[in-house]
């Protein structure tokens, strides 16, 4: 369960204040944040997972106010509760797909459930790529691998930043389907941030961000 209340954000003191609508997404729920580029979608996403501190308002995740955590505790909290999927998939290039999947557990000091990882890769249809380097995968495969990495440590919330913008229609449908399916299976809330109108019709729970809707100067 994640709730954002009265979030305002300012990059520098002289830059305009961005204020965001209140959001709420229950565990296992789905939320689509739709908006054109430059309207602060990524900013909101970074505020949600504590990478950026809002100048006002609060983000509560499973009852925990992120603003009350120390830096180190926030790093750990983020690692534990969030799985993040980026527009372009990024991996530790020197490690294989399977080794990349082991990183979240390593950073949390937990042992890596290799069989579950294998199952997850299997479900995503890339189990045969487990021991290859990420850059040897196609874009679609990379995006599936990053879904696996976002879900492997069973986070309560999955944040996806433009997960489909680099994909064609067919891949988009496949990837978004897998993403929803896996989140549902893992019991994680899914928040998708995108300008991709192809996704608009899929979600009931959606918020449209427009520059004029939240900029108060």
């Amino acid at each position, binding site marked *: 369960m994640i709730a954002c209340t009265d979030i305002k954000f300012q990059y520098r003191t002289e830059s305009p204040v961005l204020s965001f609508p209140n959001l709420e997404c229950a565990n296992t729920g789905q939320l689509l944040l739709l908006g054109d580029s430059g309207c602060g979608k990524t900013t909101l996403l970074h505020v949600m997972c504590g990478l950026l501190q809002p100048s006002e308002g609060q983000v509560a995740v499973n009852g925990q106010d992120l603003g009350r955590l120390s830096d*180190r505790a926030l790093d750990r909290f983020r690692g534990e509760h969030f799985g993040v999927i980026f527009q372009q998939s*990024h991996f530790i290039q020197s490690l294989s797909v399977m080794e990349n999947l082991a990183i979240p557990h390593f950073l949390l000091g937990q042992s890596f459930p290799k069989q579950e990882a294998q199952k997850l890769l299997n479900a995503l249809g890339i189990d045969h790529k487990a021991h290859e380097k990420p850059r040897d995968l196609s874009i679609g495969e990379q995006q599936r691998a990053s879904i696996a990495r976002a879900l492997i440590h069973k986070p309560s919330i999955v944040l996806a930043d433009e997960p489909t913008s680099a994909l064609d229609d067919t891949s988009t449908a496949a990837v978004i389907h897998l993403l929803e399916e896996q989140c549902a299976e893992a019991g994680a809330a899914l928040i998708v941030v995108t300008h991709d109108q192809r996704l608009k019709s899929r979600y009931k729970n959606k918020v449209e961000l427009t520059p004029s809707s939240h900029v108060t100067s």
Partner: protein
Amino acid sequence: MSWLYMAWRNLGLKKLQTSLSLILLAFGVGLVSLLMLSEKQLSDTFDRNIKDIDLVLGAKGSPLQLILANVYHVDAPTGNIRLADAQKVMRHPYIEEGIPLAYGDNYRGFRIVGSNASYIEHYGATLQSGRAIETPFEVVVGHRVAATTGLQIGDTFFSAHGLQDETDVHKDKTFTVVGILEESRAVVDQLLHCSIETIWAVHANPNETIDESEREITAVLLKKRNPLAVLTIPNAIRDTNMQVALPAIEINRLTQNFGIGMNTLRAIALIIMLISFASIFISVYDNLLARKYELALLRTMGSSPSGTMLLLLLEGGLLSIGGAALGLGLSRVGLIILAQLIENKFQYDWNSIGILPGEWGLFGMAIFVGLAASAIPGISALKIDISRTLSEK
């Protein structure tokens, strides 16, 4: 999964850059350590052969040459001196012992040195087989001479005039091997030992008789009884064709002259090491820039800033440990090659091929500077703006 494993794999991803850093550091460390090793070997060899020889008495000329010729047998002698004059010095009250040496011939490049039994005893060499010299033209062969020439007890050979080649062979005089020495790692290993009378007999003209007072020898190794000998003896022999030289002082002078070359080499080695540290710095910094996104990613997945800094430090640390270890190995290979090249001149003591205390210092310093060079990018990693880095691409 561990930070160390990640650092290892990251280095493996950039093989060329990693190899360059490793090679540079290995050469820098290797050169410094080779200098340390060869200096140690040289001074050990010098010390072992000086062994209680306080003064060397010989013909006037370069004192250094006198020492090199008579203590180490690597240079030509300065000339001959009269036995009668030498004996006066040997009987001087300030002198405890004198070992006379006479030589001028060789067998396959190894010197045939006439002396008495105390020469071999002085270096603590013992017979491996056979017996000591009893009559003229009997020879006890040094360990390395026997190993190189294959001379065995009972073998006979002719000597050649001079100390180098075998063009002028004394065909009329036959030497017989009666004993072979155990290895002593001193200069006696590479000599053929006979009596002084043998040397005289080789060079005697059968048609003339030599007056005993005209007998000549090459040099005398002296051990002093009284420290004043160093001052008194030169005075006592001022009017003869003789001089005394102090091995310790001459060798000191020699190593100081060596020192200029050594210092140049050491400076070059240090420059190479500096370049290698710059290379490690560039390598790690380049990794930081190229993989800023990866570091931000690690932060998103729950890593603390110190984790990502540790990753970069480990990369620098692995590079410097690898390079330094490689360098120490390289210097040992270099020493073996060097030893092969100058095998005929000096005996090497293989026992001291272990890591010298100075080399541990060198190793520690290399790792410390390697870590310091990667600390700068490491600290920048602490300050990465994750949100901005993630939004850039």
